[in-house]
């Protein structure tokens, strides 16, 4: 039912949106501030929006309470309110946080506005809606190969009982033409533009927790944005040290290996995943690689560049390389990439020296509109 107050609620939400936008960069630097709630909802804590007034400073006043207790007894910590909420007189002013729920789409929209991100043009031919069939229905006509035995039998049984030709003593059921039932399929439209994000992260000893935190935060925002641009979005996570493997999301952010770094191993896994599951003709492919830029050997770097140039890049919408600062890394890989692909628009390179720079890196990655 529509209520009169809906206009005011709408206006309030607009204001909240504005606040979120103002604070977005702060959120982008601090991942934990945004909590996922369910599949598609995020909850964002904001300071309570209030109309300022002349009031006494909360700690300065004495208050009157009622109940047991000796002088000197503690009622509650200073931050909160002694007792809970509610009443007017004797109620202490406290800072209520405002929990704002927002859909991921909304958040992405705000993000797009704030960072000035262009809408992504999906690769040409994938705009055509495709479909596949799913056998969900039953029909009275169809090829014998799709005959539904149970339904056919039941139909025949019903008919025989109804017509009185069924004999419980001799339960022979013979289906005739009209009893036959066949499976039919329904057309399930495939999302027009599917995308897959391939995250590659270096988990060798030189990547610390802070570096991983950066990757985690950045990936949340990349996910959020690309999800708003494609109807179907999948993510693939690949970690590597000297060897690479595909893992699930949890493992991706948790794993800490030690040992060397052979980047080409990750590229091989990525190549493999793409070949088997995400052929570039059907998918918009995004490869995001995070590393501290240390590679095992010059030779392997050559190999990496070769794989990228000759095999990977052609299938990708975008190859984004984010180099996180690490006390151990040399950062050489960035320069190598730059030398090789500096003017290739499919390649975006960025350094992320600290959480402060996450928004700029994301903007660099996504503002290509590819």
């Amino acid at each position, binding site marked *: 039912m529509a209520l009169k107050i809906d206009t*005011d609620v709408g206006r*309030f939400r607009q204001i909240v949106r504005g606040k979120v936008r103002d604070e977005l960069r702060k959120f982008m630097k601090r991942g934990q501030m945004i909590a996922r709630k369910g599949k598609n909802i995020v909850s964002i804590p904001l300071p309570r929006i209030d109309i300022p007034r002349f009031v006494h400073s909360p700690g300065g006043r004495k*208050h009157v309470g009622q109940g047991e207790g000796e002088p000197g007894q503690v009622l509650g910590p200073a931050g909160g309110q002694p007792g809970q909420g509610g009443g007017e007189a004797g109620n202490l002013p406290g800072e209520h946080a405002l929990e704002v729920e927002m859909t991921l789409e909304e958040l992405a929209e705000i993000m797009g506005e704030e960072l000035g991100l262009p809408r992504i043009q999906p690769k040409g031919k994938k705009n055509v809606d495709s479909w596949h069939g799913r056998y969900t229905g039953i029909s009275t006509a169809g090829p014998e190969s799709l005959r539904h035995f149970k339904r056919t039998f039941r139909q025949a049984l019903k008919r025989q009982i109804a017509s009185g030709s069924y004999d419980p003593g001799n339960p022979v059921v013979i289906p005739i033409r009209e009893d036959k039932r066949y499976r039919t399929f329904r057309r399930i439209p495939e999302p027009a533009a599917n995308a897959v994000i391939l995250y590659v992260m270096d988990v060798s000893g030189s990547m610390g927790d802070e570096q991983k935190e950066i990757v985690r935060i950045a990936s949340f925002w990349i996910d959020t944005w690309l999800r708003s641009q494609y109807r179907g979005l999948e993510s693939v996570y690949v970690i590597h040290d000297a060897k690479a493997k595909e893992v699930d999301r949890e493992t991706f952010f948790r794993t800490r290996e030690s040992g060397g770094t052979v980047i080409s191993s990750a590229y091989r896994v990525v190549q493999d995943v793409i070949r088997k599951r995400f052929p570039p003709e059907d998918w918009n492919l995004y490869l995001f690689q995070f590393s501290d830029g240390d590679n095992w050997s010059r030779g392997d770097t050559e190999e990496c560049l070769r794989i990228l140039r000759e095999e990977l890049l052609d299938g990708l919408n975008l190859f984004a390389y984010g180099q996180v600062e690490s006390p151990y890394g040399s950062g050489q890989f960035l320069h190598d990439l730059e030398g090789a692909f500096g003017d290739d628009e499919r390649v975006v390179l960025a350094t992320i020296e600290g959480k402060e720079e996450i928004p700029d890196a994301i903007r660099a990655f996504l503002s290509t509109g590819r």
Partner: protein
Amino acid sequence: MPLPRELAELQERVEHEAIRHGLRTFRVVFEVVDYAQMNQLAAYTGFPVRYPHWRWGMEFEQLSRSYRYGLHKIYEMVINNDPTYAYLLEGNTLLDQKLVMAHVYGHADFFRNNVYFAHTDRKMVDTMANHATRVRRHRDRLGVEIVERFLDACLSIEDLLDPQAVFLGPLENLPAEEDDASPEPLPPVVRKLPAKDYLEPYVNPPEWLAEERERLAARRRLERRFPRRPVRDVLGFLLRHAPLEGWERDVLSIVRKEAYYFLPQRQTKIMNEGWACTWHTHLLEHHLLDDSEVIDFADHHSGTVATLPGRLNPYKLGIELFRDIEFRWNTGRFGREWEECDDMAERAHWDRKLGLGREKIFEVRRVHNDLTFLDEFLTEDFCRRQKLFVFGLDRQRDAWVIQSREFEKVKEALLFQLSNGGTPVIEIVDANFRNRAELLLLHRHYGVDLRLDWAREVLRSIASIWRRPVHLETIVDGRPKRLGHDGNRPTEEDIEAVAAPGADGAVPA
């Protein structure tokens, strides 16, 4: 929508009992609403229509969410109006509705008879709707943001009211500061003592003359200060003197009118709830309850008057105090004889069988507000029995700590908490500060500092209304300061002392 028959009959019974016991109300109209409507009404502070503003929306969202999570449920809402409208939540048990109705009759009686409500607009439902239309019209003409910005500025000073103003006649007659339009008088003349020419420099030395001239000029300046006396009704002052556009004046007058309408409700929270609880218990316990409902009623009622250590429940305090008064006046425990008796045994069995209790509480509900109510009737006995205490923030332990159970301390804290609705006293002392049409406000500092970040925001709001720099003299951490806002940025300076004209507005000689 007419009330379902069951409820209509119930209302008749409740009303019959209420009238029999001496409650006098306007016609009470109940309406049954579902929880979404209830939340909307609550967000609109009880009214079916309010002017468009985001804070209703915020309130509504929070109420709706907390209702969904089962954190609260609004049982009852009643507005001061003729007829008095009250809402019942659809789907409540009949006992709940009975309780709510009796409670509502208590409030309705209080609204009608308490003297602090005498000035309120009894057609406020209509007035609010008109306000809504006016604000909406401004919004449509000028745009949401412009009107909203101004509205927010007005709302941030909506509690800067003069509690006495309502007794001086209709609010629409704005307080008359004498607009002194008389021409600048001649410079003051120092009266010389008569003296022969050759004695002149000795009888009237030139230094003294200069000093005297300066003194008179200073005095003249103070006398010509505008306003002559400090003004509490900041909204009214701005309405009259700020250079506002037509629509701004309209919006400001709406905010002011509504603020004065709600003022007595803030001033009588404890009494109002206490009175309503007194009557719902009395009517239900003695007349309206069925046997089967007693337990549920007791459960429900004790939930309403439950206390928590860090919180003063106005329902509880109010009902207990009314009961105490009724008991004292029934038994004659008041007056000089009682006060002077210090024989504990005699006091314990004191009963003059006066039976004046009922009469007394009706009188009290007529003439008092929370502040005078507690000042007059909070006794040491009561304070001990009700286990009242003072607590405050202990900075060292970083926690709220019980500080004292002494009667004097409790009473002092309680009265401070209720004075001016617990908000700071702010006055306009000079509207031509520095002879530059800047506005000077004064915070009467009774030992508690202002919350500074908000104070600065409010000053900015006032500056946007006054269109000239605005200052506020206050004390911060024991040092006098003059905070301000010049329209672009906040200002702050240390001063010698706050400019404090006497409370009566007398000009220091």
